[in-house]
């Protein structure tokens, strides 16, 4: 049987998918144990017990200086920045993308501008944002928005622009005005695509968040990682990275689920 025809059953898929992850963890443990056998004070590849010890300080005990539980405060700060950034991006992608996609005159006027903004590397704008908005929350959220909103806008506009012409014509023969075509034909069909675009933007959004926090912040997951880097504190960095990965996977999973439950029509195979 050809490999392209080998479909894996669901139960087996979970087991197969777990194999490389487990192997990687085993490899890490093996190498870390080896290093510790040679040098018990090794900081580069900490053992799980050291990670638990270091993290329990951050997770379970309040910081002596600020009185906060640092791990949770970091998570909350980062997630709220990410949430606001993603929210603004999604909303503007929906509004601008919809109008750009469905109204040719608007596309003619603003299309080149959006494309122009989209090709600027967002990190290059970070100094401008810090100068304009200061070092507070606004600049960090603005970096996320500038980083992902243009991509999402273009994606939604292209998706709307690619709707079959027949549908737009048909809607007009049924008496629909531009506004009605927009909210009844284009908007609902943009929604599943919007969630798709949001999922694809999650990765870049995390990149911009961590970058902004690394450069100027006093709290946040990215801030903590870059802070403890000075002490080679891999026992904190590795659990933080794993936590970020877990958060990202959970958000992605929730988005996929919500798309399936809210827009079932978009996930059926078309004949």
């Amino acid at each position, binding site marked *: 049987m050809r490999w392209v025809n080998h479909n894996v059953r669901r139960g087996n898929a979970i087991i197969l998918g777990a194999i490389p992850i487990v192997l990687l963890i085993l490899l890490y443990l093996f190498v870390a144990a080896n290093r510790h056998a040679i040098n018990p004070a090794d900081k580069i590849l900490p053992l799980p017990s050291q990670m638990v010890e270091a993290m329990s300080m951050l997770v379970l005990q309040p910081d002596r200086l600020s009185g906060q539980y640092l791990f949770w405060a970091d998570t909350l700060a980062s997630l709220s920045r990410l949430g606001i950034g993603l929210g603004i991006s999604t909303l503007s992608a929906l509004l601008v993308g919809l109008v750009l996609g469905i109204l040719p005159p608007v596309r003619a006027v603003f299309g080149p501008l959006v494309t122009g903004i989209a090709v600027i590397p967002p990190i290059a704008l970070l100094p401008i944002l810090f100068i304009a908005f200061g070092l507070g929350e606004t600049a960090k959220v603005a970096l996320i928005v500038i980083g992902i909103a243009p991509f999402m806008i273009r994606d939604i506009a292209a998706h709307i622009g690619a709707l079959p012409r027949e549908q737009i014509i*048909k809607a007009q023969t049924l*008496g629909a005005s531009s506004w*009605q075509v927009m909210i009844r034909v284009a908007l609902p069909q943009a929604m599943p695509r919007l969630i798709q675009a949001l999922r694809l933007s999650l990765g870049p959004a995390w990149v911009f968040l961590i970058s902004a926090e690394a450069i100027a912040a006093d709290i946040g997951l990215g801030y903590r990682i870059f802070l403890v880097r000075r002490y080679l504190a891999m026992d904190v960095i590795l659990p933080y990275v794993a936590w970020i990965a877990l958060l990202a996977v959970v958000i992605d999973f929730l988005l996929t689920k919500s798309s399936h439950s809210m827009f079932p029509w978009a996930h059926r195979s078309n004949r």
Partner: protein
Amino acid sequence: MSTLSLRNVWVEYGEKIVLEGVSLDIEDRSFVSIIGPSGAGKSSLLRVILGQEVPSRGTILLDGEALPPECGPDRGVVFQRYSVFSHLSVLGNTMFGLECAQAPFAARLFGTKRQAARERAEEMLVAVGLGDSMHLYPSEMSGGMQQRLAIAQALIKRPRILLLDEPFGALDPGIRSDMHALVTKLWQDYALTVIMVTHDIKEAFSLGTRVLTLDKRRHDPHAPHRYGATTVYDLELTRNARADATRDDTEDMSAGFPTT
């Protein structure tokens, strides 16, 4: 009385001439089939009548008034594909036209108005044979059912003219003959004026009361794009509406040929 009049209509794309000098009068309640070779401008003619395209020369009158240069609810259309909304259920697709007319801003109806629209839509769906499928989405339906839905969606607006652009081209032969019977029945029941573009000559003659053939009258082998197509045959068929209702389209088609 003549419903639709085309006066010397030309369609040109830059250098390329697609239609030249098309003049037509289409009577109320007629069923006009348009046939012709590929690239003869059948679909262009339909798009011009629909208002999707503006002719480069000439005028089109509907009930004596010039057509506005865009689509409107007076001309319904069924395309070969993509004429239903994949994000709406069968019922939602059918109610769309009513909702647009009655709720300019929200484009949705609520309460008793919604109930009334729903009843009209259900009635329409029963008429096209989709009475049992009202809550399905288009992706769950066969091609034939989608075309039935597209017809119901168009007819609920009671258009002056129904335009069909190769509506049965993508369907199986068996389904196609069912659709022929349905369209004939609806044409009579709703007193429709239908213009249908088709590739299928048999279909054109068995359904139509009039068959128009588009083709180029002249041909320049060095510049084939410089002459456009026009109506080269215009056949009035003596189609007895009553007899046709029961006739199967697989019957001998000589019954449909012109007597003139």
